[in-house]
């Protein structure tokens, strides 16, 4: 205990960030069975993955449907436990069964469909459900509910029924519910897949706020390339393996490689790439409209 505190302090002084999630050689296989229970095949969903995620980072995971990214993410809060290798979340090995609840409190998860995650009849009840469940004193529950709702910009809806909210609002309530557990890390598995453009923006900006202001580590899984451009680091998965990693700029320079992995690049990057093919001289890895317009105006 003292040693850990000492190491934390030392790392703090030296400017190191601690690992919040550390996946080492993680292997996970699904066994497919027929109606009689006979094994008919094995799918390796996560294939010896190594991943170090630092406290406070904003991480994105990309990959086509079936590439293993959701299966991997389920390892980060002990919904799944690796068959081989280890996953350490905030210093705790996820295979320690008696620590499961500590891990889930530290690493909260938000899923695709907001309607499957909301149970309360009133917004503030829904958000308070998690802390109540782990025996947080009533007074503190209310403080946490208020703070969480404010940080996703939904405090004014605290007395509303979740049924009457838009998809983007519901997802922000789900995020507030996770925040009320005071996690160090939040994992979002395609949180915007079902939302309209406005809802998508609301959710993304709420997540970025949490990361910047509260220092919560964010692990975002998405199929929308635009949502990734502000991440600190991007991991790309294929067939259960991490096949690319780097900053968004590094990763999105590899347009052809991403396309062959059934992925894409942001619209702006794609436009810049098409312009280069047409003989216009532009640098690699343009990510925002501003950058593109600035580069183009230099040319005329």
């Amino acid at each position, binding site marked *: 205990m003292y040693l850990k505190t000492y190491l934390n302090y030392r790392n703090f002084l030296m400017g190191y960030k601690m690992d919040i999630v550390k996946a080492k050689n993680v292997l996970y296989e699904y066994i*497919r069975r027929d109606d009689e229970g006979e094994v008919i095949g094995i799918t390796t969903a996560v294939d010896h993955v190594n991943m170090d995620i630092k406290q406070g980072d904003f991480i994105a995971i990309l*990959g*086509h*449907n*079936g590439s293993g990214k959701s299966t991997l993410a389920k390892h980060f809060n002990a919904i799944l436990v690796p068959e081989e290798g280890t996953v350490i979340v905030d210093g705790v090995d996820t295979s320690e069964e008696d620590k499961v609840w500590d891990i889930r409190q530290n690493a909260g998860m938000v899923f*695709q469909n907001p309607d499957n995650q909301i149970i309360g009849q009133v917004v503030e009840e829904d958000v308070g459900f998690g802390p109540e469940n782990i025996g947080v004193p009533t007074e503190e529950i209310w403080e946490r509910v208020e703070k969480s709702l404010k940080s996703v910009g939904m405090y004014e809806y605290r007395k509303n029924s979740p049924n009457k909210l*838009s*998809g*983007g609002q519901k997802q922000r309530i789900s995020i507030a519910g996770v925040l009320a557990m005071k996690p160090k890390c939040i994992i979002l598995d*395609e949180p915007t*897949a*079902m*939302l*309209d*453009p*406005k*809802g*998508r923006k609301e959710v993304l900006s709420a997540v970025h706020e949490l990361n910047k202001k509260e220092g919560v580590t964010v692990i975002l899984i998405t*199929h929308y*390339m*635009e949502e990734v451009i502000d991440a600190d680091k991007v991991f790309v998965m294929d067939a259960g393996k991490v096949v690319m990693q780097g900053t968004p700029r590094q990763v999105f320079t590899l347009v052809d490689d991403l*396309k062959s992995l*059934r*992925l*894409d690049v*942001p*619209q*702006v990057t*794609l*436009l810049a790439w*098409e*312009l280069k*093919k*047409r*003989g*216009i001289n532009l640098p690699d890895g343009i990510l925002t*409209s501003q950058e*593109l*317009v600035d580069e*183009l*105006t230099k*040319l*005329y």
Partner: protein
Amino acid sequence: MSLIVDHISYIYDQNSGIPTVGLEDVSLSVPDGQFIGVIGHTGSGKSTLMQHLNGLIKATSGTIYYNGEDIYEKGYDLKKLRSKVGLVFQYPEHQLFAETVFADVCYGPGNLGLSKKECELRAYDALRRVGFPEELIFTSPFDLSGGQKRRAAIAGVLAMKPEVLILDEPTAGLDPKGRDEVLGQIKKLQQEENLTVLLVSHSMEDVAKYVDRIIVMNHGKVFLDNTPEVVFSHYKELEEIGLSAPQVTYIMHELAEKGLNVRTDVSTIEEAADEIAAKIKDRMIQN
């Protein structure tokens, strides 16, 4: 003229204390073979409108004509209408249930009272038309990838041989390649077989790339109904109602402001790249 929506309004919970307007005085005509995008924020009424088109919901007032017949007329065969106007719901793969993909696709035509042989021919044909991999036809739908399940579900509706195909967010949750494959296949069906397609989508980029016409819904009313070029030129109004134009539209406007005389009514990457490259090369020659 295949579908005419004539001044329909729809009110939810009419008999309860708090009636809510779902649709208000909507009129449209949908000619044969058009590819139409339907956009609008969550709750704007677009899904409600789509469910009117095949008679799943009955309008509170106004009527709908399909091939010249009033679908609310007494004795009108709604079952037949539903086979002609096929509706693919969001996440249609949640409705796959049979033991094999093939059996699942046969289910719809089976309900039309066709012979087993005819059903199987149609199912096979529908799976081929959506580009479903032949070797997977007799596997369980639950062993498929997301994109394959989506195709199987769309084939189930196509096997009914609809003249109009309505798709509610057919690409939600698919990876970028899967989105292109599904929409590309639908575009091909529309062009080759003159199928009429209504695509409900939250992706302005997808809509810009594939459709001939866009209907914008807001608060249960038709807010705009025009070509993508015209609709996206109203990008400021679109933002006010929670939508946006494709990102390239914004870039074109910005370049025009900065003195490059590009067309601003461009909404796809290809068009934008051609236009910008041409104008920049002109400038370089002049200098």
